[in-house]
């Protein structure tokens, strides 16, 4: 007989959450389900659970999920390599993929021919996270960026080129605090515009 449960595990044990993910991450699941619904999921709770499962199974994202979102921070858990914003972008990408996958299954169960299953043909490589996060976001940012105020555009452009606050300040003839303020305001202004743009049909 095969022994029971994740603790009995063998090599597959690592693939399973050590604890009950559903209760440990109850609030994260609710937040992801809300986003899944907005992305058009017919089963937002299921999509949220699948996204969490995949994020806990992935060796890169798992420490970040545990650190930032577990109910109780495990003692002596070191800070993750990923910053919070990288994790949130990843969760968005996985969730979006899971929702698309779900739509594919729905189409299959409606007996659409095999050729009809799969991603939106208008998007040639929609299922890779690189595509999702990089290309689409780059496109949206490219559209929104020119609407920012001139100073914000200038500092964000120089930051994207890898310049430090001190260098930017010297070039623009302002002090570093002003540069820091323009960077954060620029990012937040851009985020607002991106949210509006995404709400207008980015699915």
């Amino acid at each position, binding site marked *: 007989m*095969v022994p*029971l*449960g994740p603790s*009995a595990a063998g090599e*597959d044990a690592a*693939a*399973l*959450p050590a604890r*009950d*993910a*559903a209760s440990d991450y109850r609030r*994260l699941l609710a*937040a992801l389900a809300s986003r899944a619904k907005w992305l058009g999921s017919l089963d937002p709770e299921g999509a949220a*659970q699948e996204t*969490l499962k*995949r994020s806990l199974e*992935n060796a890169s994202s798992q420490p970040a999920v545990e650190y*930032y979102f577990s109910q109780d*921070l495990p003692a002596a858990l070191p*800070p*993750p390599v990923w*910053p*919070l*914003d*990288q994790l949130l972008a990843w*969760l*968005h990408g*996985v969730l979006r*993929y899971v929702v698309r996958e779900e739509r*594919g299954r729905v189409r299959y169960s409606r007996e659409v021919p*095999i050729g009809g*299953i*799969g991603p939106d043909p208008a998007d040639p*490589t929609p*299922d*890779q*996270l690189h595509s999702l*996060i*990089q290309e689409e*976001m*780059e*496109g*949206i*940012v*490219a559209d929104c*960026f*020119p609407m920012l105020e001139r100073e914000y555009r200038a500092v*964000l452009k120089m930051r*994207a080129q890898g310049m430090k606050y001190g260098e930017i300040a010297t070039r623009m003839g302002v002090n570093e605090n002003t540069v820091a*303020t323009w*960077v*954060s*305001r620029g*990012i*937040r202004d*851009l*985020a*607002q515009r*991106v*949210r509006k743009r995404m709400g207008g049909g980015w699915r």
Partner: protein
Amino acid sequence: MTSDRMDRYARREMTPAEARELAQESLDNPELFEELTASALVHAGLTERSIRGGRMARFRWKTAFAAAAAAVLLITIFLVRPTRQQALPQARPGKTVVAVLKPALGSSASPGQPILLASIPASDGRGGALVFRGPDPASRPPQPAGVIVSIEDGLATINLGSLDGIKKGSVLTVFRDEKSTRATGRFVAMTVFRERARGEIAGQQVAQDYKTVRVADADQVAALMGHVEVLVSRGDSRPARDWAEKAVALAETTNIPLGERQKAWEMLALLETQAGSLQAAERHYQLAIDSLDAESRGSFEKHSSALNNLAVLRMLRGDYDAAAALLTGSASASNKPDGRSLNNRGVLAELRGDRRSAEALYTDAQHAFAGGADSSGHERRVVETNLARIKGPK
């Protein structure tokens, strides 16, 4: 939520502990969670390319290039057509020929074009790997999860089988239902049929209460790849690419062996090349090659093939320097003379005007195909065509 904290998050200045506090706060504040995610996506999309207005700039460049190319083509047709016999000799020698030569892949080559070789199946499925699973059009796609349909004499039967990546010894996780995320037992496959499998399950009570079984990620990816191969063998390129994209997405988001992920990238790259999505193909070849560098340096032949295919893509878009570096890597990765790589190095030499080296490389490629047990008659003929062309105008 203070504006100062949000500003510091936007500038990525928070300590991990502060970021955790903010993350926890966002779980009770949907508006904050959305704001943090939007800011995260801006960071992901804020690159030099997007700031330059990448898409629009590329579009304008492409449009301008297309217009210029059309104009050049019209002028060329107008000038060449009436005096074709006289014009050709003038175009042959020296750099003029080199400047107008463009390589092409396989059957898409026009007479006079240097022909490249890559291990890419024909779009009708010919040339693809042999598939020992019947090309049954009614075959269902693989499923990631199934159910326990019966239990008899301590053995459970599930409605998943070899089609779903199950093999003897595969371990599936048992859940209460399809929405549950907490595994409570395991099913080990002992006898595997096409769409069913029988095996042991951990405890009678578990088997009765918990009905859903989920296929291990590595087996799911293997099943998806098997399905892709079936579709390729049928010549169903578009669905094959869709399913390869699913396999890649699953492979990228789950913890499976790197070698399996590499196979998925390479298969998708092949299908993208076939479909003309060359940039996407390049990206996936690059990922496959990077993964080979990390794990599979012993797999000389595959390494060589992936490098060669990526070099071909680079040559098709005119990046000859990058192609040269890859072909050099391909030659050193292979432990025997590789006819495709030698041929493509010959094309590169020809494009650069070094006809003597091109001829030597084509000759070596011809010998490699003649001596190889797996030599393809078609590929040998391609090399002979290249060789005849390079010898002809001497």
